[in-house]
C-alpha cells in the first residue's frame, strides 16, 4: 500500500475526533445564540434545538462516510439518519436548557443530576481540571477555552459518534461491500 493511501486511511480513522470537536461547537453556538443575555421563547428554542440536532445528525452521517471512505450519498439512508439523529444529533447543552425552559425550573434537583450520566462526567472533569489549572496558576478563563474546544468534546461527543459508527455496521444499516484490505471497492 502506498504512503498516500496510509495517510488517507489515518485521516479517515481520525476524522471522528475532528468531527466531535465540530459537533460540540454547533451545540455550543446554538446554545449561545439562544441564551446569551436573554430568555428565548419556548417555540424559538424548540426550532433552534431541532435545527442544531439535524445539523449534528448530518455531521454524524458525514463522519460515517469519511470512516467508510465513501460519499455521504452512499451511506445515507433513513435508518442511518434516524440512528445518527438519536445517538449523535440530540445536543446536550441545548436539550438541558430547553427542558429547563419548558419545566420552568431554575436548577435541576440532586436526584436528576445523579441520573444524568453526561452531567456527572462534565462536573467531574470540570472540577478536576479546574483544580489542576488553578494549581499551575492558570486562570479559569484561559483553561476554559481549550477545555471546551478540545477536551470536553472527547468526553461528550466522541463516544456517541463512535457508538453510531459501530451500531450502523452492527445493525447492517449501511451494507457496503468491502475488499480484503478492509477498504471499500
Amino acid at each position, binding site marked *: 500500500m502506498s504512503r498516500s493511501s496510509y495517510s488517507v486511511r489515518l485521516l479517515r480513522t481520525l476524522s471522528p475526533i475532528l468531527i466531535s470537536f465540530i459537533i460540540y461547537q454547533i451545540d455550543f453556538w446554538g446554545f449561545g445564540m439562544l441564551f446569551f443575555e436573554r430568555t428565548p421563547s419556548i417555540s424559538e428554542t424548540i426550532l433552534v434545538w*431541532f435545527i442544531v*440536532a439535524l445539523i449534528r445528525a448530518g455531521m454524524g452521517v458525514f463522519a460515517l462516510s469519511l470512516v467508510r471512505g465513501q460519499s455521504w*450519498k*452512499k*451511506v445515507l*439512508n*433513513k*435508518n*442511518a*439518519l*434516524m440512528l445518527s*439523529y*438519536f445517538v449523535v444529533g*440530540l445536543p446536550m447543552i441545548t*436539550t438541558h436548557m430547553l*427542558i429547563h425552559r*419548558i*419545566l420552568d*425550573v431554575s436548577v*435541576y*434537583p*440532586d*436526584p*436528576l443530576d445523579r*441520573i444524568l450520566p453526561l452531567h456527572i462526567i462534565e462536573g467531574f472533569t470540570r472540577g478536576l481540571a479546574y483544580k489542576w489549572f488553578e494549581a499551575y496558576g492558570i486562570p479559569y478563563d484561559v483553561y476554559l477555552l481549550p477545555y471546551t474546544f478540545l477536551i470536553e468534546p472527547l468526553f461528550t461527543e466522541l463516544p456517541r459518534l463512535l457508538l453510531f459508527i459501530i451500531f450502523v455496521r452492527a445493525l447492517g*444499516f*449501511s*451494507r*457496503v461491500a468491502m475488499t480484503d484490505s478492509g477498504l471499500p471497492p
Partner: protein
Amino acid sequence: MRNLSVLKVIVLLVLALFASIGYWKFTELYRIEETEIRVQEKTYTDEVFAKGAISGLGGLVYKGWVSISLYASREVRVDFQEAIIHNGARYHTLETLITDRIANTTFDGPEYVAIEVGMLEDYDEVTVWSMKIVGPVERTYRPYGDIAVTIGYFSILAWFIVGSWIVLETVWKYAGIWSHGKGRSDEPV
C-alpha cells in the same frame, strides 16, 4: 417489514403515552406547596458599601421577632421594618437606629419583620460591617419538587423523541418525493 412498522408505531404510542402521563404527573406534583416556619441564623460579614447604598438582608422577611448583633467600622443606619405581605410585600419603617454596634438585641412586634442597613448621608468612605441575625423565617417549598422535575424531564425527553421521529419520517418521505418524484427507499444505495 410490515411487522416492523407495526412495532415502530406501538413503540411511538407507548412513548407518547408515557410522556403524557409523566407530564400530567409532573404538573400534579409540582403544584403542591407547603409552608413551614424555621428558625434561621444568618451571618453577613465584610460587606462593603458604596456611597448611598442601602442593603436589605438578602430579601429575608422574618416572622414575628428577630435577634440582631451588628458591628460596623463606622456608624450605619439600621431600619427595623414591618413587612406588609399582601399582593407582594410593602415595608413600613417602625424604628431606626444609627449605630456602629448592636449587641444581641431582639426586635418584636409586627407579624413580619424586615431589616435594612444603609449608609448615612455624609459618608464618603466604604464601610465594613458584620451582622448576625436570628429569627423564624416562613418558607414555602414544594415537598415533591425533586421527583416532579425528574419525571417532567424524562417525559419531555420522550416527547422530543416521538416528535422528532414523526418529523424525520415526514421530512424523509417528502424529501424523497421532491428529489425523485416517487419517494426514497429505506435501503442503502
